[in-house]
């Protein structure tokens, strides 16, 4: 398995339940549940395979087969399904990406609190382990489903589709997806969101956009977070923004602080406008049997 970040497969949990897509090879084992924690089933397995070993006795001559398929085609197909579902229901979805510790969850909590009463919000939380972030979101008043990716380092569109099924997503609502804290891998995986929002905190280096260009290129909005700490740091805001714009000249930037509230008005206005645009361009309702088949199941909180 990955020696860089421990990225792996087969340990994904969505709302405490195993990710359907993965199949078991080894034996199941249960981890004893902590107080207030849902039962978590963990798969103990290595590499997943559904194919039988090749028939090595076959001596037929070899031939070339043209494939010409994008490696991410399957994920992109799931993402397209998600996007279609969200469009049909007029749901504005954001995929929040950043390094660990940039303040994503705190910012989400403040956002939920500020929009309460005006907007129906649901949250999908991605972390390798623990239900802590989803618990913080639920405490703030929004339903949340936690996806535990196990050793995995990003959310993919299939995981998000299953999490969406567990949430009672309402028409014209806002769906916030907090990706796994990682500035590398989530850049490649479309989840079906309207926009990727990258969060860079001023306690990180100005050159993060140059060091991790894929993510800043994939994003439409950069939130420069923890700006209340600027007086205590030697962080060059103009340089950070200049680097980000070199990667992505169309990137919109908002200076923000979840603690002081700086920039929150602009951020909330951006969200509200996005919600309005999504609702206005809502696709026609699908026929019965189409879409994700979202059930009316409320997330337990």
């Amino acid at each position, binding site marked *: 398995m990955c020696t860089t970040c421990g990225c792996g497969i087969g340990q994904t949990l969505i709302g405490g339940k195993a990710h359907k897509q993965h199949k078991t090879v080894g034996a199941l084992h249960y981890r004893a549940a902590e107080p207030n924690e849902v039962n978590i089933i963990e798969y103990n397995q290595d*590499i997943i*395979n559904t194919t039988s070993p090749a028939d090595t006795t076959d001596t037929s001559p070899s*031939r070339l087969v043209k494939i010409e398929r994008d*490696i991410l085609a399957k994920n992109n197909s799931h993402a397209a399904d998600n996007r279609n579902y969200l469009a049909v229901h007029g749901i504005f979805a954001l995929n929040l990406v950043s390094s660990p510790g940039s303040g994503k969850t705190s910012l989400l909590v403040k956002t939920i609190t500020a929009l309460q009463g005006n907007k129906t919000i649901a949250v999908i939380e991605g972390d390798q382990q623990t239900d802590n972030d989803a618990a913080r979101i639920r405490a703030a008043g929004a339903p949340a489903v936690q996806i535990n990716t196990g050793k995995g380092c990003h959310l993919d569109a299939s995981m998000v589709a299953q999490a969406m099924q567990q949430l009672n997503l309402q028409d014209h609502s806002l769906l916030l997806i907090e990706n796994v804290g990682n500035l590398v891998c989530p850049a490649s995986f479309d989840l079906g969101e309207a926009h990727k929002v990258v969060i860079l905190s001023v306690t990180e280096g100005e050159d993060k956009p140059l060091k991790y260009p894929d993510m800043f290129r994939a994003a439409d909005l950069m939130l420069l977070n923890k700006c209340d700490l600027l007086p205590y740091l030697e962080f060059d805001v103009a340089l950070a923004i200049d680097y980000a714009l070199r990667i992505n000249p169309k990137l919109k930037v908002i200076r923000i602080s979840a603690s002081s509230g700086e920039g929150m008005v602009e951020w909330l206005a951006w969200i509200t406008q996005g919600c309005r645009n999504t609702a206005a361009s809502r696709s026609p309702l699908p026929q019965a049997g189409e879409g994700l088949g979202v059930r009316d199941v409320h997330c337990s909180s």
Partner: protein
Amino acid sequence: MHEMSLAESVLQIIEEAATTQKFKRVKTVWLEIGQLSCVEKEAMSFCFDAVMRDSIAQDARLEIIDVAGQGWCETCACAVPLAVLYDACPKCGNHALKVTDGDAMRVKELEVE
């Protein structure tokens, strides 16, 4: 490090092709990896071997075809080579370049029997 997921996707593509193209074993896999794509070639090779184990593509040889990065400079109205996403146009120094090639990753071809 998402190459493990990507290698799994490669295997899915191979397995789907095996069903439609009726082959039982894969001897060589050619992947096109763009210079600007989010793939580390060495990591992909490592994950490829691990994921293909006990599959139809066990012991298959992985051949990676490099695809050079290319961008378009609006100011100069010309194509420019791009080694990294933050490269500037060599003529005018402009960073606002549109990526036109080298950001994809594809399963190009298989040698099968």
